Each structure stands twice: as C-alpha cells, then as structure tokens.
C-alpha cells in the first residue's frame, strides 16, 4: 500500500532530503525532533512536527516508545529512519512493523544478518563474494585465535562482532601485541556492545574503500554502480566520488555483480550499500560489510545515474516493484561530494557549534548543496558536526574537480568554522587530482599540510 503520511525518525540534512522526496511523491510528512531541534529546517519544512524529548539523543532520537507514540498520535503510516540513530536497529524495524506501520528499509531479519559482522561474512562467502582473509566466524578460543593469526599473517585486525562505524577495532603488528590485545578487545567489546564476540581479519595495506549501491524490492536487486570513499580521517569519510577512478571496467562489472548476488541472497528490500576494500596493486577486492540503510554519500550515485534513491526507497516501501531493470541504469559522467562540517581543520578539527551569520550557497550547472542550514540558524552542540554536503557533477573527473573548486569558492558559511578550507586544499592537490590515494593517505597528508588548512584571506 502506498505511503500516505511519513514520519521521519532522524534530523539534520538527511531529514530535509527525505522530506523533499516525500513532497515530490505527494506524501505528507511528520518530523519528530528533540527540544534542541525545534528551529531546525526539517521541522520548518515538514507538514507536522512532534517534540519527542530532551536534547540528548538517547532520550529523543533513540527513544523508540516516544517515536512510535508520535506516529500513532499523528496518524503516520510509515517511518523512514535515515542514517545513524535507529537506522540499523533491527528491534526498531520490528517494532515499527508490529505497530502496523511501514518500515522504509529492509526486514529486521536482513538487518540482523548483515549487521552482525560474522554473519555477514558467512553470507558473503556462501554467495561467492570474496572476503578479507580471516576467521571463518566468531573466535572464542584464544589458542585457536593465535594459530589463525599466525596463519593469515600480520598485521591482523581484531574486530568486535557487534561493532561498527570504525569502533571496536584493534590492530596487532606481531604475535606479542596480539597476545596483549586479544583479551582487551574482548573485554572492551563486552562493555561497549554487550557482546564480547570477536573476529579477525588480515589488514590490507594501501587499500581503497569502494562501495556498491544496490536497490532491491525483496525479489529483484539492481546495482547503481560504485562509489569510492578512500579519503578518510579517523575512519570517517571526508570526500566521496562516483565512479571510482581506480576501477577498470571489467573489475567494475565483477564487483557490482558480486554485490547484487549477496543482496539477492538475503532477499534485500530497499536501498543498501556493500562496502569493499580494493587492492589496486593486485586487482583483488574483498567484501567488508553491508550498510542496510541510505548512506550520507548517496547523492554522488544519484548524480551519475539520474536515479532518485530516496524516492525509490519510498516507492519500494509502499509495495511497488523496482521500476528499473539493470540495463536501464547507466553510468554518466563523474560526481564528487565533500562533507562540510562545523569543525576547524586548522585546529585539529575542533568542533564549533554556533549561529549562522551569513550563508551563500553555490549555484550554476552541476552543483547541489544538501544542507540543514539557513541564515540565522543556531547549530546545536548535541549532534554530529555535518552541516551539509556539497556535490558536483561533470562529464569527466578532472572537470568535476575544477567545478568543485569553483563551487567551494562560492560557498560562504559565516559564524562558525567549517571544513571548507580542507576541501579547497584537497581539490588543489596533485595526488588527489591524479586519483592516487588509499584509505591511509589522508591522515599523514593532514599532518604535512596543517599550515594550509586555515580559512583563505
């Protein structure tokens, strides 16, 4: 049944993005918000707004009972979780459906399988998708773990089975370090995630982060090509592109086909992303994890395919089959997204909430700015620092970088520090322009270029 009234269980720029998609489909919107977000752009844009609690996320955006009550009180018939917060919480997905509402996302059971790193790895292997050499499942016996670490070779990554977002990861360079870290990792995983389960993976040095966007309707699955997100700081993506500059066409086809095979194996419904490491020296790729939700960097895929992923999510959740066959999805040109955050790159990325005194948004062909900002808005200190995403499209990668530099020059956000100077420096960098980077490229670059990251005069 088509969605009539959608509750957005999120905030910030993604809430704005979801409301836009709903409006274009004639769907009414309910924006839930914390006491700190009463003035947010999403609240202003939505048809209705409901205060669901105090500023702390655990008391508002993570409060399942209050969100479900807001849905009942407003007569919403569907819930979109966005990204972060409850987006990959299988219990929330089940609770939404148990309340008789449409969950805009995959079944709770699919979230559970793909959200557990070990189960996801097993699912990938049985779908014929290569995974990083490591343990075949959870490791509970320390002696067995030790033998396996010696077999796969150092450095070895010890990960929490229930971890995610770069948390709960330790790297051992040799067996002495491994012996020291293994008990620590287990205790930390138990404390942080309530599950001491661990697994191990070989560290792939100088790998690229490449991920495949998929859309499924529970029966059919298509891919919308890949994104490359190798420029990362503290495992957080900073600059994202589609397509990857490093992937030969034959490899692209193999990688995307493997993502479709895995998503089909779990009867995936909705939008999802399969993340891989790609070793461009050997041409090998390895599945690392699946995100069972829309991602921050989805716009670059929209720009190269012309597919509105958020609208498709709402259509699929409303019961429509996929409107695209794989052959309909064409890769056209090149897109880049940079994350504009309220952080000062000249001062160790210190966060800086504040009031927006001036806002000049770039325009012109091939430029898009997905943001939560408006002039006079006070950015609250309680949530993450993402202010918006500047996205450009052009015919070639080189032309897209030039367009990004031009658009960044037009962007003015006054009243707080932003990461704009970082992106301007990246756009000028010869290695970035040549596409010569990997997931550990950016951090040493930041150390070497610290003096070039201030606001330009």
């Amino acid at each position, binding site marked *: 049944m088509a969605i009539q009234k959608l509750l957005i269980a999120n905030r910030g720029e993604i809430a704005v993005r979801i409301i836009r998609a709903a409006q274009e489909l004639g769907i009414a919107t309910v924006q839930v918000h914390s006491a*700190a977000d009463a003035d947010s752009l999403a609240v202003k844009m939505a048809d209705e707004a409901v205060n669901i609690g*105090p*500023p*702390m996320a655990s008391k508002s955006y993570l409060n399942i009972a209050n969100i479900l009550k807001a849905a009942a009180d407003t007569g919403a018939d569907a819930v979109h979780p966005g990204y972060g917060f409850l987006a990959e919480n299988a219990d929330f997905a089940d609770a939404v459906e148990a309340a008789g509402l449409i969950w805009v996302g995959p079944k709770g059971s699919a979230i559970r399988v793909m959200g557990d790193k070990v189960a996801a790895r097993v699912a990938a292997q049985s779908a014929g998708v290569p995974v990083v050499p490591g343990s075949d499942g959870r490791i509970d016996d320390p002696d067995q773990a030790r033998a396996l670490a010696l077999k796969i070779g150092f450095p070895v990554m010890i990960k929490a089975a229930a971890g995610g977002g770069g948390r709960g990861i330790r790297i051992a360079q040799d067996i002495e370090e491994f012996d020291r870290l293994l008990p620590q990792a287990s205790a930390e995983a138990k404390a942080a995630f309530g599950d001491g389960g661990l697994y191990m993976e070989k560290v792939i040095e100088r790998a690229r982060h490449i991920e495949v966007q998929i859309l499924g309707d529970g029966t059919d699955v298509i891919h919308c090509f890949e994104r490359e997100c190798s420029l990362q700081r503290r495992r957080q993506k900073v600059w994202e592109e589609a397509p990857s500059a490093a992937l030969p066409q034959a490899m692209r086809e193999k990688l995307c086909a493997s993502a479709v095979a895995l998503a089909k194996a779990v009867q995936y419904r909705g939008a999802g992303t399969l993340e891989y490491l790609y070793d461009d020296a050997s041409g090998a790729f390895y599945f690392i994890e699946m995100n069972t939700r829309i991602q921050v960097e989805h716009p670059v895929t929209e720009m190269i395919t012309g597919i509105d992923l958020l609208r498709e999510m709402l259509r699929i959740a409303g019961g429509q089959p996929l409107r695209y066959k794989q052959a309909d999805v064409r890769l056209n040109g090149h897109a880049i997204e940079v994350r504009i955050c*309220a*952080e000062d790159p000249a001062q160790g990325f210190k*966060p800086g*909430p504040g009031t927006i005194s001036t806002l000049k948004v770039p325009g012109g062909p091939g430029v898009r700015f997905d943001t939560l900002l408006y002039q006079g808005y006070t950015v609250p*200190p*309680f*949530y*993450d*620092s993402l202010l918006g995403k500047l996205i450009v499209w052009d015919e070639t990668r080189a032309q897209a970088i030039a367009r990004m530099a031009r658009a960044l020059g037009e962007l003015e956000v006054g009243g707080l520090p932003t990461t704009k100077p970082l992106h301007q420096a990246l756009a000028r960098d010869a290695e970035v322009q040549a596409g010569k980077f990997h997931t550990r490229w950016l951090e040493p670059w930041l150390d070497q270029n610290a003096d070039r990251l201030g606001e330009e005069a």
Partner: protein
Amino acid sequence: MSKQILSPLPGTFYSKPAPDQPAFKKVGDTVAVGDVIGLIEVMKSFHEVAADQAGTITAFIADDEEPVMAGQALIELA
C-alpha cells in the same frame, strides 16, 4: 562570595567519566586548580573540564547529562 566553575563550551555536561563509573567529584570534595571536574560533549567529541580555581564543592549547579551553554556555571565552590 562563592566561586563557580563555568563550562568552557556548549554541549552536554557529564559528571562521570562513564555511565557506570563514580563521579569525578562530589559535594564536599576539595578541588585543586587543574583537577578534572567533568566532561562536556560537543558534537560527539568529549572535552575535559579542568578547574580554574581551588576550593571545596558546595553544590553541582549542572546535573549529570544536562545540556549547558558556554559560560554557564557547573559547580559552586567555597
């Protein structure tokens, strides 16, 4: 006149290093300059609040997990 320790940043005040651990300081404790009296979470990053004055704590003005503004009083000292 009583002395106060102010929040250097806007965000969420925590009086404990972690939810399952005891508070950094409690009423009646003496505080030396430089002692950590709490944490402020700003945009998902945590900053220690160090005392800029010495004394004995007479009251917590901000509760654990309370949203605070920059310059808002957290603790009163005698």
